[in-house]
C-alpha cells in the first residue's frame, strides 16, 4: 500500500515474514514509488516462500524430511547455508542452523514456564551443525534433524530488496522489515534517514548501510528470579540469562548487523564485551 510521507517521498507498506514491512522512497513520482514497492514486496515474499519451514512445497521441507538422505541445494540456498555455518563458528556453536527444533519446547510469554532437563536433552540430541555433512552443494543430516533459516532470513531479505531497488532506480530508499533496515543513501536533501529504535529515545541517523535490532522486550520468561530472552543457546538448549533487552547494531549490511545483534544476545551479560571484540557499532537497551 502506497502512502505519501509528510517529509516528502512515499512509503510502501506490506506484511511479510510475520512482520510489518515498509520501503521508504524519497522521490516525487508516485508511479515509480509504487513500482519499487512492488519489487521489494515480491522479493520479501519470494524469500519467505522459498525458505519458510512452515510450508510443505519448498526446499527446506525437502531437507527436513530427507530422513538421512543428501539433498542438493541451489546456489542461493548454498550461500545462506555457508553464512549460517560461518555464524556457527563465530558464535562458538551458540548459533546453529539446526537448532530450530528446540524452539518448540519453549514459550516466551513473560511467564515462568521452565522446561525440564530431560525434555531439553531429548531434543538437543537432534541438534548440532558439527554432525551435518555439507560440501557446499549437498546437505546431509541425520534423520529427525531439521534446518531453519529463521535467524538470518529476514535480514537477508532486507539486503536483497535494497540491492534490487538500488539497481532499479537511482532514488534514495530505505528498506525496513520489522525493524531490520538498510538504506541506499542519504535523502535527496542530504539529510540522513531518521529511524527510531523500539522502546527507546535513541534515534539512528542512517545514510547508507544497515541497522538491525535483536531483543526480547516482549518475548522472554523468568526463572528463579532471572530474565531469559527468547534466543536459545544451541549448545545447551536453554535460553540465555541476563542479556540486554535489546541490542541494535549498525553494519554495512543488514545480514552482518543482524548476526552481531543476535549473537550478542546469546552472550547474555557479556553481550557488550562480544560486540566490542567484533568492532561493532552498537547501542544497548539494558
Amino acid at each position, binding site marked *: 500500500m502506497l502512502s505519501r510521507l509528510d517529509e516528502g517521498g512515499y512509503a510502501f507498506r506490506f506484511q511479510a515474514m510475520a512482520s510489518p514491512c515498509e520501503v521508504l522512497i524519497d522521490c516525487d513520482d508516485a508511479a515509480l514509488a509504487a513500482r519499487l514497492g512492488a519489487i521489494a514486496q515480491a522479493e520479501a515474499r519470494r524469500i519467505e516462500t522459498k525458505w519458510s519451514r512452515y510450508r510443505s512445497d519448498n526446499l527446506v521441507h525437502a531437507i527436513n524430511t530427507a530422513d538421512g538422505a543428501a539433498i542438493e541445494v541451489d546456489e542461493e540456498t548454498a550461500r545462506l547455508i555457508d553464512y549460517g555455518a560461518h555464524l556457527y563458528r*563465530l558464535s562458538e556453536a551458540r548459533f546453529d542452523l539446526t537448532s530450530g527444533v528446540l524452539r518448540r519446547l519453549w514459550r516466551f510469554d513473560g511467564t515462568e514456564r521452565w522446561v525440564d532437563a530431560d525434555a531439553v536433552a531429548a531434543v538437543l540430541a537432534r541438534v548440532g551443525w558439527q554432525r551435518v555433512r555439507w560440501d557446499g552443494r549437498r546437505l546431509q543430516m541425520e534423520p529427525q534433524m531439521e534446518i531453519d533459516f529463521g535467524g538470518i532470513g529476514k535480514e537477508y531479505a532486507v539486503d536483497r530488496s535494497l540491492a534490487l531497488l538500488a539497481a532499479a532506480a537511482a532514488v534514495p530508499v530505505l528498506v525496513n522489515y520489522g525493524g531490520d533496515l538498510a538504506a541506499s543513501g542519504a535523502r535527496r536533501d542530504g539529510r540522513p534517514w531518521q529511524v527510531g529504535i523500539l522502546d527507546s529515545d535513541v534515534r539512528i541517523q542512517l545514510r547508507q548501510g544497515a541497522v538491525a535490532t535483536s531483543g526480547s522486550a516482549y518475548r522472554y520468561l523468568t526463572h528463579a528470579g532471572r530474565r531469559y530472552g527468547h534466543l536459545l543457546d544451541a549448545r545447551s538448549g536453554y535460553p540465555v540469562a541476563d542479556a540486554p533487552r535489546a541490542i541494535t547494531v549498525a553494519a554495512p549490511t543488514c545480514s552482518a548487523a543482524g548476526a552481531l545483534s543476535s549473537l550478542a544476545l546469546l552472550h547474555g551479560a557479556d553481550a557488550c564485551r562480544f560486540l566490542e571484540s567484533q568492532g561493532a557499532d552498537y547501542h544497548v537497551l539494558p
Partner: protein
Amino acid sequence: MQLNPSLNAAALALLGLSQASAAADAVPGWTFEGATLIYSEADGRVQAAEPRFRATRNWDSGRSLSMGLTLDALTGASPNGAAPASTPQTFTTPSGNGSYTIAAGETPLDDTFRDTRVALDASLSTPLGRRNTLTTTLFASNEYDYLSIGAGATIARDFNLRNTTVSFGVNVEQDRIEPVGGAPQPLSRMPAEGEPRASREASVSKTVIDVLASFTQVLSPVSLVTLTASLSKSDGYLSDPYKLLSVVGADGEPLRYVYEGRPDTRLKQALYGEYKRFVYDRDAWTISLRLMSDDWGVFSQTVDTTYRWNFGARDHLEPHLRYYRQSEADFYRAALFDGEENQIGEASADPRLGAFDAITVGLKYGHTTRGGLPWWVRLEGYTQLGRSAGVPAEAADGLAKFDLEPELTAVLFTTGFRFGR
C-alpha cells in the same frame, strides 16, 4: 576497531558480492564554499575585508580532505594604547622615521595600521575502523611582520551508534614576529622621531600548545549537547610591539609614553557547553555558554544563542544574540603614573585586555536554489562598552575628564555560498 572482517566478508558473500560499498556519510566528490566578511568599525577605525574559500573532497572510503584559503585586508586606525590628553599629542611611528599627531581630547589612534594576511589550512580526516576518525591539520598564515605555522591532530570515537562522540585533540603553533623597527624593550620610553634608539631584537617568537577534550551526546531525537574543555599554553613574545601606555602626572596629562610589556607565558583554561534542540520539526535553537580564565587574571563569559527559522522549504532566517563580558588582566593599566614604569615589570593599555561588555545582534537569511545550491547573507552589529579599570589612583582626578573607555561599534556583513559535486 574495524568490524570483524570475516563476518563482513561472509555477509557480502551471502549477497553474492565481493566487497562493500563502504558506508560513507558524505557524498563523494568535491564541495566548494566561499564567503566574504566585511567588518567596519565606526568613526573610521578598523575596516576589514576577509574573503574565504574552502574546497572539500570526500571519498567513498569516508576519508575527506579540506583545504582553506583566507585573505584578510585591514585598513583604518586602531587605538595605540595611549590615553587622551588636553593638548595635541605626537607619536613616533613604529619605524622611528615618521610621526602622527592626535587632536586634544581624542583617543589616540594609529592610522598607519594597514595589513594584509594570507592564511592557508589543510586537514585530512581518515576513518579508523567504523567508529574512530583521525583528523590531522596543517595551517600557516603570513602578514608582513608575522608568520605563523602550526599542526594539529584530533582523534574522535563514536559510541552508541554515533549517539555519543568523544574527541581529543592537540594543536601546536609556532609564530615568528618581525616587528617594524624591532621589538621594543618592555616599558621603555618611546623615542621622539629621529631620536637615536636602543638596539632592538629584530625577530621574536612564540609557541602555543592547545589541548582539548570534547564530548557530544544525543539526548533525544531532537536534542544534543556538547561539552568541551580546553587548555592553551603560550610561551615567548606575547606583547604587541606597537602598543603604548601614557605615563601621566597628577593632572592626568602625559609626560612621556612607554611601550607595553606582557608576561612571556599565558595559560588559558576554557569550558564550553552547547545545547541544540530541534523545534516544531522544522527549526533549530542553539544556546551556548563559554567560560574562560587565564593566569593573566582575565575571566570571560560568553552566552550565544541562535534560532534557525525554516519558514519555507528552501528559506531560513536566523536571528543571533551574543553577550560577552570580560574582566581586565592583572597588568591592564589605562595609564601609568609618573615613575610607575620603573617599579613594575608588566603593563598594557590594550583595550582587548581591559574590562568590557560586548553585545552582538545579528540576522542571517539563507536560501537554497531549486538546483540545491545554498547561499546566505548575514548582518550583525557589535557594540563594546568598556568598564573603567586600571586607572592610577594618583592621577584618577586628572584622567576623569577623559573618556578612557570609548564605546566601540562595528558592523559585520557576511555573504557566502556553497556548490559541489
